[in-house]
């Protein structure tokens, strides 16, 4: 029996979806549901639009779905329950019919023969109901138990807790083969291969690391499409005790009494900024986002260099298309023509609209290939210098105590094949640990290590803050600050030091900037 809260919410959604067509003004509906499996409440019509848009793109773009709930393997027929969703539009679940389980017989579940099972189910449903299903979703008995446990306190938990639990649920469902969808959607394929790549790394831990690195923010996002406009309000705040508080709200313009039919995007964004009182408001096109995410999920894992290169080129192209494919208010100073002109007089050409999206990925990957080779192992250590500031670290074993996370990345044939996580205690045994001895210890266990790279959390936070959130009042400051931090051993270290890093350390920041900017920015202003 599925969790009551989950079931009630799901039935409400189905009811709304069935009746939506007869509603007079669905855009102004004041009904709210929870997004299934989340504590996030959302306007009913917006949820409908999400399903309409995302389900066909990422799961299945055909009509009618059959859910099969399975019992243990040793039964004569594993089928416990059958639920048929007749969908007039792909992805829009409207009615659900419980079917007698004996119309399909499954003696054992063989994941490699799901096509046969699908044919069998399709024939049975056509025979009984004259409906051609396009997809089957199989859930084991344990899946229901796991989902029930997960849903127990779902309405009460914070967004942070939800993300942690949700990623854990996904990992368990895939690793323990508790869910199958046939035909298998690209998103499941991607997740399955990514989990192999991540080895024993828990997704929830990975989320914690990423969350730690992202600085505080308060922003809203206007996602625009021809028929629908969605406003997402995102917040991250840190409490006095450095505890993270995340918030996410999905809104529609009518909910905020906004009329966004004005063609001036900046004006619309300013309006949202005023009402939601956020620091920044971004504008993005729905199709651009969907196409990028879709390309991301289509990435074959292990990640091949060519695919990553292409994706990075696309991401950089997106970044340089400011005021074309995306926009934001307040307008970052870096785009001010007069300021750029004055700075150019001093010999610095910073025009992010001329970012060399086509050449930067080549430069990066060629450097990596040359220095680390096509097969390599690189040890990444993330430290947290802040710990020493607030006196949480004992002077003994200081490096060990500052060290937050350790990863070993294994590249083979120019592809990222595996990411291992390494326990601190494996690396640090002596009081005064040198980088060389750390490398030696990892080498003994995993083979020759090409390099040990140490990033401090503060450096990573600053990179995101300045370059992704454009969070600076001064044009030059971020570039100088980041380069200076790279020179400082407290925030960045690489062992052995390869020539490019030696150059960064040896030369003045201005000289490095003068060397790098022509590589990052195209020369011609046409």
């Amino acid at each position: 029996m599925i969790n009551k809260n989950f079931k009630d919410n799901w039935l409400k959604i189905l009811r709304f979806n069935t009746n939506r067509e007869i509603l007079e003004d669905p855009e102004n509906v004041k009904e709210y549901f929870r997004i299934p499996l989340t504590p996030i409440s959302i306007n009913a019509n917006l949820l409908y639009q999400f399903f309409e848009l995302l389900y066909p793109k990422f799961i299945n773009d055909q009509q009618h779905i059959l859910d099969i709930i399975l019992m243990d393997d040793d039964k004569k027929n594993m089928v416990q329950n059958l639920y048929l969703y007749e969908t007039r539009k792909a992805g829009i679940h409207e009615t659900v019919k419980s079917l007698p389980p004996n119309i399909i017989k499954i003696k054992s579940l063989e994941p490699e023969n799901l096509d046969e099972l699908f044919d069998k189910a399709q024939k049975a449903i056509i025979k009984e109901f004259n409906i051609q299903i396009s997809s089957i979703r199989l859930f084991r008995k344990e899946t229901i138990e796991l989902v029930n446990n997960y849903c127990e306190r779902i309405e009460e938990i914070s967004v942070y807790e939800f993300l942690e639990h949700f990623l854990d649920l996904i990992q368990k469902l895939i690793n323990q083969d508790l869910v199958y969808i046939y035909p298998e959607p690209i998103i499941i394929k991607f997740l399955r291969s990514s989990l192999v790549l991540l080895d024993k790394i828990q997704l929830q831990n990975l989320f914690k690391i990423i969350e730690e690195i992202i600085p505080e923010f308060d922003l809203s996002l206007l996602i625009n499409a021809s028929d629908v406009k969605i406003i997402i309000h995102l917040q991250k705040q840190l409490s006095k005790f450095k505890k993270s508080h995340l918030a996410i709200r999905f809104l529609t313009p009518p909910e905020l009494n906004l009329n966004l039919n004005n063609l001036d995007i900046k004006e619309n964004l300013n309006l949202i900024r005023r009402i939601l009182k956020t620091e920044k408001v971004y504008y993005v096109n729905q199709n651009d986002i969907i196409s990028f995410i879709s390309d991301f999920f289509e990435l074959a894992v292990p990640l091949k260099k060519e695919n990553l290169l292409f994706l990075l080129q696309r991401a950089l192209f997106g970044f340089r298309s400011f005021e074309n494919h995306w926009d934001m208010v307040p307008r970052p100073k870096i785009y001010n023509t007069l300021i750029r002109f004055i700075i150019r007089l001093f010999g610095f050409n910073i025009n992010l609209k001329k970012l060399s999206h086509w050449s930067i990925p080549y430069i990066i990957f060629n450097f990596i290939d040359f220095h680390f080779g096509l097969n390599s192992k690189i040890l990444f250590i993330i430290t947290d210098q802040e710990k020493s500031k607030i006196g949480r670290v004992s002077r003994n074993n200081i490096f060990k105590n500052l060290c937050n996370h350790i990863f070993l990345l294994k590249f083979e044939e120019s592809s990222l094949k595996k990411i291992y996580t390494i326990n601190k205690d494996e690396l640090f045994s002596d009081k005064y640990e040198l980088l060389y001895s750390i490398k030696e210890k990892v080498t003994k266990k995993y083979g020759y290590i090409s390099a040990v790279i140490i990033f401090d959390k503060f450096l990573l936070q600053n990179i995101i803050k300045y370059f992704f959130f454009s969070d600076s009042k001064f044009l030059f400051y971020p570039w100088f600050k980041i380069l200076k931090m790279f020179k400082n051993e407290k925030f960045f270290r690489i062992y052995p030091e390869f020539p490019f890093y030696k150059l960064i350390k040896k030369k003045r920041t201005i000289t490095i900037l003068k060397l790098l900017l022509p590589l990052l920015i195209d020369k011609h202003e046409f």
Partner: protein
Amino acid sequence: MNCETTFFMFTHSKSKKTEVVISKGNTPKESLLKGIEQLGGISKFISNDDNVFIKFNLNLPAGFPTNTNFDVLEALIISCKEAGANNIYLGSFPLRGIPLKIISDLLNMKNYFETLGGELIFLDNSDTLENKNINQDQLKKIKSESLSLLQINENEFFVPTIILNSNKFISVNQINVNPLFKLNLSLLNIYSIIPPRHQVIGKNAKENISNDQYKKNLISNILDVYEIKQPHLVINDLFYILEGAGPYIYKDSKIKRTNLMIIGDNAIAVDKVTLNTLNIEIESSELISQANNRNIDVPKLSNIKILGEKLEDIKTPIELCVSELEDIKTRSFSIHSGNICSGCFKQAYHLLNFMKTYMEKDLKYNIDNAFLIGENPPEPNKANNYFLFGDCAIKNTKNYKFRKIIIKSKKDLIQEAKKKILKESKSKKKPKIKEKQNKKILELPGCPPNFFNCLELIIKYFGKKNVPNLNLLTHINRLWIAGDLNNKLKIWEEL
């Protein structure tokens, strides 16, 4: 040598086939250990208290597969130790102008081998060159102590004494494609036991381009060096092969996994089996065919006993390097080759591949370049810039049309207009034609030109702003190929 020994060797070689093993494993280490085991175990090659010298590929301070796979070296060092070897030395001469000390520091090799129980030998004495107080006489003494002069077939070679004195000599060779010899065979790996300066082919040899005397002399030298000290164990590592463009990592390079290793005690036999495995005709290898003409033990393929995998089952065709420079397809470049010697071909191959890989933006900024190389290259069409690569191209194109540009004097438009208004007859004066020296020519002298000098000349010709990629790269290069250590290495080489 007495008659009895000769008779024994004759009957022995006749009765016993040369053994070569083709081993396959899931990891390079597994392939290596399995192969050695199939040959009779490491103790067949290494005895108690042996001093072993392992010659591996060490070209540049770069990652795998530019250099030998360190995991393979690790497994081999441990095996030698287990067999009771007293000292395990490892070494190689890198490319010319690059001190071994710099590569060792960048790859952290010295410490790495020490922890395994081996010792990296600085064959170029670059570890002692760091000492600021060292003078020329001391340098000379160090060099004479570490290198021995040997004469083979009327040629003189300096060979590291430590290699000559070692009881056992092992070659561990990473198989990559090679522009001159199709593959980096173990014979080429063994050739770099002599200092890079002595690997250079003399000028008189290059003058006879039509029969490629350069390559002939190079092959002769390679075989001479092979005769000096033949390895006791030869490992051709083709677990991963760099194909397409090689032997260094370029844009067109691809890595191919075969899971194979070919091991034996005769370098030529191992090379022959390697060629065969990779579907390359043995007869097409000039190195092997020249070895046949010498008094070297060159076993026929039919006389090689192949252990492990069956040759027919594991044949793997690979994509070799281009044989024509025109096929490198470097952006904004049209290549015009005349008769080229192998020396110039090799350098131009590396330069063009380097530009294609690391100068993407520079080539986009500087379009329409003609690259002329060799004796009597074809006259290029009109181009923005002309690159003359090597002494031959510079010398032979002195009278080419592109050397001069023709400038027609501009019409005096005002005078023409006046005459039209006054309805005067048109002047019959022909526009003046002037011939000027074309300054858009970049000469890259040398026979063959030095790679790093070429880069410096290119940046000087175009200007820093027009070649941002190369500008950064030369700044980086200057850090490791133009320091005090490098200057001392040059002095050391000249002594």
